[in-house]
């Protein structure tokens, strides 16, 4: 089999698992967003109920109760689906583990694969340590600077407003609701975006001025992807949400650390151990400790992204190969012509030299004959 065919077969093989894992990833992300939306809906309904009780509005209270019930049912339904998803993921993982175990019967392979697992787990540890560090820095900031807490709340509220407006736009009729659509697009949407960016600017300006290593992209990700919970009064629970996010990272970090311990001969890399050192540095110390790599983390590619890059690279390589072959053909043909021309030139010169030699020889012969005749006289 040609090398190219082998590579194609390998690529298609990888593509199958790549497609499956990216779809699973998509579903998990979608479920995560749905859960956040439903939790928010439930919180809103609970807040409405509280107001209705205060206002002694029985109808509003009943409506709020109904909304809470629907949200709870939806949450339960979603949980069932997420549990199914988890089962599929676990079964898939078991297949991968059992295949790895089978291949690991070969001691050489076993040692090799363990070294890869050690590297990958440490890579994940590094990523989560960095992200947790960022969350902890933000926790510290909002705890010590109420203005920054307000900025963060402003960002969260504006992001929520943008999402609400997006949802509303999807439901509107382009003809009937043109006025409202224009109002959203021309006034409300730009206002929300402007609030978000001004609050973000103030937050980041403080960080830059005080040398706090908050990564702008991470802050965006935190605001966009993490659903901040709300109190019954509608206030954003910044501290609680951030604390829960930080705890989530703790769980992941602990899981990876334990997983590394189970790998024969593997260890947690020194750089990851330092981040976990149980120290209580001062706010300033923590800020100064963040290095430039933390501020601008290098982009990590998912393995299927690497596959895609590999495919692109392969295509480019093929194009280059064809170009090179064509150029070589032209060069070869040109070289042949040159050789022929040289050979042709050689023949002409040879003929010329032969002719000259013959002429010289004849003249020499003639001279010799004349000389002989003179001697005879």
């Amino acid at each position: 089999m040609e090398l190219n065919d082998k590579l194609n077969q390998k690529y298609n093989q990888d593509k199958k698992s790549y497609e499956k894992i990216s779809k699973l990833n998509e579903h998990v992300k979608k479920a995560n967003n749905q859960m956040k939306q439903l939790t928010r809906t439930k919180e809103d309904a609970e807040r409405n109920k509280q107001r209705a009780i205060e206002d002694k509005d029985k109808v509003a209270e009943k409506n709020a109760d109904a909304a809470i019930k629907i949200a709870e049912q939806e949450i339960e339904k979603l949980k069932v689906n997420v549990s199914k998803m988890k089962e599929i993921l676990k079964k898939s993982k078991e297949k991968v583990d059992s295949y790895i175990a089978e291949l690991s019967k070969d001691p050489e392979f076993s040692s090799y694969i363990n070294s890869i697992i050690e590297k990958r787990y440490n890579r994940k540890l590094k990523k989560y340590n960095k992200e947790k560090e960022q969350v902890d820095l933000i926790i510290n900031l909002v705890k010590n600077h109420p203005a920054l807490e307000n900025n963060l709340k402003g960002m969260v509220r504006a992001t929520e407003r943008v999402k609400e407006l997006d949802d509303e736009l999807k439901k509107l009729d382009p003809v009937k609701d043109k006025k409202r659509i224009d109002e959203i697009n021309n006034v409300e949407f730009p206002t929300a975006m402007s609030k978000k960016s001004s609050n973000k600017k103030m937050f980041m300006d403080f960080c830059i001025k005080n040398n706090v290593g908050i990564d702008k992209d991470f802050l965006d990700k935190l605001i966009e992807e993490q659903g901040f919970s709300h109190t019954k009064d509608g206030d954003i629970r910044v501290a609680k949400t951030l604390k829960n996010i930080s705890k989530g990272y703790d769980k992941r970090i602990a899981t990876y650390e334990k997983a590394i311990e189970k790998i024969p001969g593997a260890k947690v890399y020194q750089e990851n151990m330092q981040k976990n050192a149980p120290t209580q540095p001062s706010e300033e110390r923590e800020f100064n400790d963040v290095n430039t790599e933390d501020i601008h983390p290098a982009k990590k590619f998912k393995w299927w992204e690497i596959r895609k890059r590999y495919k692109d690279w392969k295509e480019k390589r093929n194009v280059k190969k064809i170009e090179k072959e064509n150029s070589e053909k032209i060069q070869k043909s040109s070289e042949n012509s040159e050789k022929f021309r040289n050979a042709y030139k050689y023949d002409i010169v040879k003929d010329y030299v032969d002719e000259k030699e013959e002429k010289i020889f004849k003249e020499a012969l003639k001279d010799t004959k004349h000389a002989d005749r003179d001697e005879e006289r």
Partner: protein
Amino acid sequence: MYDELNEMEISRGDLEGLNAEDLVDLKVELEDLIMDCDEILDVDNEEDE
């Protein structure tokens, strides 16, 4: 939406031919997704203030 998930289960056939690096990447990715699911399911158990 979730019916198609069954088709997403990774089979033994999908794994044959994968090299060691890809197998480990797949394993780690699956483990991460399982942790994501745990976090979604754990939403009610988050600590209150």
